[in-house]
């Protein structure tokens, strides 16, 4: 009986240790992310234009091909599936333009772009900053009178906030073109019908998509910078930081997508 009591209490103790430990490290991580965000916003005005421009080229311009290709085929498959499904239900492919347009503007454009950029840019940020951390280059910045957040995180933050919404707009446009190609040449929908349906999409829907993409950009860059700055343990550590930066960014983008959509809709945007 006494043994049982000890066994249970030991089990409880271990459980509490594990749960407590996880909770403490989670709270610490959230706290550090908040501090990093605050510092990034504090230094925002002091960013060098040349650094921001370099980052826009590396993050935005170089992401154009992959984003274009992804969104083009997404628009195409969306038109194809909508057309065939509606043909089964209504005997003709109606509302293809509306479905393709609204899906891309409100959801697929911002989310797909964010996921693609999280994979490409988030990984690059975490790997670069992580390597700088493990080779003491971040400490070297401090000793040379430079704040690493100001020098490394701020230009990346501004570049992401500018380039990801622009990439999103471009992705939406490309997706709509992809849908148009399939609608006209595969589903035999008149071009004017498709274009008129697209034209009916209002500014509120566009604002909905672009606003979300700004938040997604902030999530990707802050998570990736945080993972890079807190990276430890050599090459293995850099690998782990990079993987978790991409995974956490993607998951957070998808989770925040719901909450942001709900909030924006409740304010009548979209």
């Amino acid at each position, binding site marked *: 009986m006494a043994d049982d009591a000890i066994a249970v209490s030991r089990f409880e103790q271990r459980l509490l240790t594990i749960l407590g430990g996880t909770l403490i490290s989670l709270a610490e991580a959230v706290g550090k992310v908040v501090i990093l965000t605050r510092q990034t916003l504090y230094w925002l005005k002091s960013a060098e234009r040349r650094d921001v421009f370099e980052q826009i080229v590396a993050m935005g311009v170089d992401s154009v091909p992959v984003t274009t290709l992804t969104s083009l085929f997404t628009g195409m498959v969306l038109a194809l599936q909508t057309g065939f499904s509606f043909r089964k239900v209504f005997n003709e492919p109606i509302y293809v333009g509306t479905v393709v347009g609204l899906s891309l503007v409100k959801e697929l454009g911002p989310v797909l772009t964010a996921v693609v950029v999280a994979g490409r840019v988030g990984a690059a940020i975490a790997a670069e900053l992580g390597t*700088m951390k493990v*080779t*003491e*280059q971040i*400490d*070297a910045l*401090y*000793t*040379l*009178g*430079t*704040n690493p957040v100001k020098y490394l995180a701020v230009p990346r933050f501004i570049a992401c906030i500018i380039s990801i919404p622009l990439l999103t707009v471009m992705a939406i446009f490309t997706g709509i073109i992809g849908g148009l190609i399939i609608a006209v040449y595969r589903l035999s929908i008149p071009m004017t019908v498709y274009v008129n349906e697209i034209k009916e999409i209002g500014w509120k829907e566009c604002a909905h998509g672009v606003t979300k993409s700004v938040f997604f950009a902030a999530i990707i860059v802050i998570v990736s910078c945080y993972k890079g700055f807190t990276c430890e343990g050599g090459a293995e550590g850099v690998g782990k930081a990079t993987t978790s930066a991409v995974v956490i960014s993607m998951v957070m983008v998808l989770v925040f997508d719901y909450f942001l959509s709900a909030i924006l809709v409740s304010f009548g945007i979209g």
Partner: protein
Amino acid sequence: MISFENVFKAFGSNHVLRGCTLDVQDGETLTVIGGSGTGKSVTLKLMLGLLKPDSGKIVVDGQDISAMNEDELSQVQKNFSYVFQGGALFDSMTVGENVAFGLRQLGQHPPGDIDGIVKEKLAVVGLQGIEALKPSELSGGMRKRVAIARSIAMSPKYLFYDEPTTGLDPIMSDVINNLIVDLHQKLKQTGVVITHDMRSAYKISSRIAMLYQGQIVQIDTPDNIKNSTNPIVQQFVTGSAQGPIQMQIKAYG
């Protein structure tokens, strides 16, 4: 002057410094010796404000840096320069950009003068004409010398060296030792060096401090350290496996 007053620092259950007290006098080169993992690098990072002590005071020129916020600390850090063990050169930049980096960030020199200062500092460490090379194209010794050039370009009051001769061949080690001695004589800076290379320690130091189990066990001139009667210091400087310092050797498998 830098003073450590009863400094404690732990990482989880690993208590690295346990009441460390130490003074660095202006104008001297103080070398901190001790075995691997005894907290030499931690001591240096605490002096620089890169780490905060758990308790105790770290006083630099009369100011307690352990209680400072980031802005105040960055003002004090302008007096410091640090030569990292691996050099910590920025690998995305050329050698010239690395040496110029701190100067450009401080903004105290007109941009037109910076190239001249970079050339001059690289000449001081014996590396002329390599401004356009990338750090990946340099040997270990050259990287250390570029790192020293980058540090002295800032004209700091205090210059810190983290194991400056580790990983170098004996001749290159001596080149670095001579460079440290020369710089000290020319620039009259206060130097703090951490190393476990005793040849280097004897050559470059005004005083040597031995760190063991988180405390300074002896601090004295190189000659007195060489002839120390303290069994811990004696064992370390002679490099004997027999003595009070028992290295932990873990068997895996």
